[in-house]
């Protein structure tokens, strides 16, 4: 290879440089909880808005220039394409910097990465969505995707939990799915507000529609009714899942939440008769490159960024106990 060949090769690779982000513009910001925000964003380059395609469950690397990059899933559905969404909790350097941005600010985005949910496997099946906290973000993309093609799928059950009523994300979605007669939504919280008053949830009091109903019904009751007669249960997600006991017949369970919830949910599903192939989850790991090179997101020989983040329990159960 001569020097000019190399320059040519370099130009080719520079054009498709996987590490170069696209510039995105934030169009709208929604406060989900005191520490979680949803950002609506779009490509600055209008040509790319039409060219860009992704699947539910895929993720991107989002960057604040000068601060750094972090991976989050795309939480909007590919069936609704006027903008993209991602949701994130304020926990570290990059997420804090993202939370400080306002509408009109520019961020870097590269993606989509990962495999996405296997839609062909889900079609014709009864779907049980099990989500915890901000783990609803990737599920939400899939749920809207499924609801926009409702006739292709069987029964849909959504079991979603958070620490407290104030920590429930995507309340507007929970309301919309609750209004949909073809969907069964069960919402639960670990603890009701009246028992444990955290400083964060006190600030949030009154912002939450579900929570504002609570005092009317009375504390101490483990099953509280919201105004539109939907249940807000109390208990951890795996417990509630065991009580609801969805049938494993022709069903697939899609689980996403904090690792501790995922770990305790699989045994419950197994007891209900779900096989490892019938359980699908989307995992979260520390990532840098997002494309299987930087090395840190492995579980055994699997890279969560490139081989996942969507896995069946059958693929990962050998390693999940000790490395996840």
């Amino acid at each position: 290879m001569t020097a000019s060949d190399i320059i040519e090769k370099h130009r080719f690779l520079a054009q498709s440089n996987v590490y170069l982000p696209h510039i995105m513009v934030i169009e709208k910001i929604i406060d989900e909880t005191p520490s979680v925000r949803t950002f609506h964003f779009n490509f600055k380059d209008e040509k790319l808005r039409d060219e860009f395609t992704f699947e539910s469950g895929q993720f991107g690397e989002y960057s604040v220039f000068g601060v750094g990059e972090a991976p989050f899933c795309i939480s909007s559905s590919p069936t609704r394409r006027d903008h993209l969404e991602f949701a994130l909790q304020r926990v570290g350097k990059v997420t804090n910097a993202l939370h400080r941005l306002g509408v009109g600010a520019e961020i870097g985005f590269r993606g989509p990465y990962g495999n996405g949910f296997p839609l062909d496997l889900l079609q014709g099946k009864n779907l049980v969505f099990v989500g915890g906290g901000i783990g609803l973000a990737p599920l939400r993309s899939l749920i809207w995707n499924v609801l926009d093609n409702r006739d292709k799928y069987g029964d849909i059950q959504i079991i979603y939990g958070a620490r407290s009523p104030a920590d429930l994300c995507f309340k507007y979605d929970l309301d919309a799915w609750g209004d949909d007669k073809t969907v069964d939504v069960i919402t639960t919280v670990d603890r009701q507000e009246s028992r444990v008053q955290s400083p964060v949830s006190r600030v949030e009091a009154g912002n939450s529609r579900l929570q504002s109903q609570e005092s009317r019904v009375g504390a101490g009751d483990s099953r509280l009714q919201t105004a539109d007669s939907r249940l807000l249960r109390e208990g951890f997600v795996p417990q509630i899942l065991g009580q609801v006991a969805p049938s494993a017949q022709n069903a697939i369970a899609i689980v996403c939440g904090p690792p501790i919830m995922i770990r305790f949910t699989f045994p419950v599903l197994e007891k209900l008769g779900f096989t490892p192939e019938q359980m699908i989850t989307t995992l979260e790991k520390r990532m840098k490159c997002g494309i299987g090179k930087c090395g840190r997101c492995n579980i055994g020989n699997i890279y969560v960024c490139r081989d996942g983040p969507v896995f069946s329990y059958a693929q990962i159960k050998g390693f999940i106990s000790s490395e996840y």
Partner: protein
Amino acid sequence: MSIEYRVSSFEEYRGGRREASKLKTQNSKLVRKKDIGSVLHQWSKDYTIFVPCNEGDTAFTVHGSRLTVYGLWDGSDINLDWYRNTVTPPKANFLPPLEEMFRFQKGKEGHSMELPFEPGVWSLESGVPLPQLIFGIRPCDARALSLLDLIFTDAYQDPYYLPRREGAVLVGLVCLNPYDSCFCTSLGIGPGESDDVDLLLTDIGDEFLIEEISDKGKRLMELTAGLKDATEDDTARANEAKEKAYGRVTRKINTEGIKDRLLSAFEDEHYWEKVAAKCIACGICTFLCPTCYCFDISDEMVKKQGARFRCWDSCAFALYTKMPMENPREEKWQRVRQKVCHKFEFYPMTFDVIACTGCGRCIRLCPVNWDITQTLRLLD
């Protein structure tokens, strides 16, 4: 949801390489050691030349010897009689310890980005970018680069590593005086042979015997003047020297079924705590490992200008995998397990090849004498 790899196995990858360049070892040349400078001078028209050298006149020593690295050839005559192997592996020439990926700035129209000048190609003062020629690379280190290729070509092509790698020429040097920490012969690599270099040199006294290994090496030889054809006697002397070198690699590991043995020991916390006990998690074994490639990506910004860069990272550090809520490898034994299993279990599962070349750096440069061969012997 099946997992698809672009490269399904190391054999497949190398099979393709071999097909492209049929091995022609019979055509050997000779060069006198004192003429090596003039040969390098001819090559320097087309290549940026790196040779093993001791870094400056620094007082910094590693186990009694000065820090040996691949440095830019300064045009003088070279004598490699002292040379055994470098401290920094040649991966540093292709995946630099610190490298700028792109620059960005914030202007009135928003953010804009630009690539640094010709990343991936070393440039001389004239500004003409030239590919690298690494002179004196050992067979183990050359194999390590082939193993790294798997990662950087797989699924997504790395735009920084690959242009450097594809243009480069590796001139190997048979390893006549291996360290007592070397165990390459246990891993299918020999001190006297290599498929991974382009040319292979053997020290036969006052001369080097040069074997053409790849097409790239053959073309390079055709363009090189001042070489003699080797006689049968020279080849015999070279073979004798190689034979002796094999006998000098005395450390061994048992690689048979190592993948399965590690898999069954994966949950054995007692074993891992025992082997990790003296590790101080300094990470030097991973930084100096020729097949470790993990990196971190960070931003720096001053006023409205900044750069994104990547630098080596190590699975020996707890922060490497730390997430806001938990850390899958919080404990030291978990991180040692990751390092050992990545090379001897996960890599074989994915590419059907062990990602260790037996270069022995992690043994001889470890500050607490942690020994991978001892760790694996406990599994026997």
